[in-house]
């Protein structure tokens, strides 16, 4: 399909090339993100989530590092 396109692509001017590429990498950006989202969760996270119940919320000194979370 679109046989004449494959030839035309070769002479693409520099300025136009950047614009034509944008959609391609835009999809890549989502792929990068989604590929991580779809990864199996490492056991270290399951362990941490299991441990949370034993950690009291916001009593006295907060989380490690002590930075406030809202600013």
């Amino acid at each position, binding site marked *: 399909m679109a046989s004449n396109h494959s030839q035309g692509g070769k002479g693409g001017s520099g300025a136009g090339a950047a614009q034509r*590429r944008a959609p391609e*990498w835009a999809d*890549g*950006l989502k*792929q990068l993100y989604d590929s991580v989202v779809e990864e199996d969760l490492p056991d270290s996270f399951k362990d*941490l*989530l299991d441990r*949370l119940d034993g950690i009291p*919320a916001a009593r006295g000194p907060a989380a490690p*590092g002590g930075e406030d979370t809202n600013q």
Partner: protein
Amino acid sequence: MTDGGRPGTPRSATEQSDFKRELTRVVPHLRAFARGLCGRPDLADDLVQETLLKAWAAQERFEPGTSMRAWTFVILRNAYLTDMRRNRFRGEYDEGVAERILTAPAGQEEPIHLSDLHRALLTLPAERREALLLVGAGGFSYEEAAAICGCAVGTIKSRVGRARAALSEMLASGAIPRRSTSDDVAHRAILDELEMVAAGNGVSTRG
């Protein structure tokens, strides 16, 4: 993102388990956002763990019914900026991604490597990188991204636009500069810029 809520009011057991369920659900997104921000998977996961502990500790400030993803992204972002200032991340990127190659659309001469894209992303100034990640990868609206970054919607639009233009140019030309974090001057500039970002003031004019 307001301080209102009911500080000091203990959550009931039900509320706590609801919170935990929602928190668990956003972990994959936190990992993806962190990976995009700091590049290295191990450091990104450390950052997410730190975020989960902070979110848990601050759960009384979460308003049920609002977006857990947005709320935790704010925490992750702040933790990232803090760690950056402590010199923990050096803009390294994930070598493992180099194996993956984007499928080239018909008619394209050469595919763009995801590793190139990721590396190019990591060379962007921090505030543009996060803006593009939030909108272009995370699917947040400009309004949501602005709320997460604590800046105006117009600022986010401008950052995303500049980030897109810079990436397009880098990928089209194949010239993907490395940000020289080992160089003292460059590093100082990055830290200064982070101070600004952390303070909620974007760097609006920058090379």
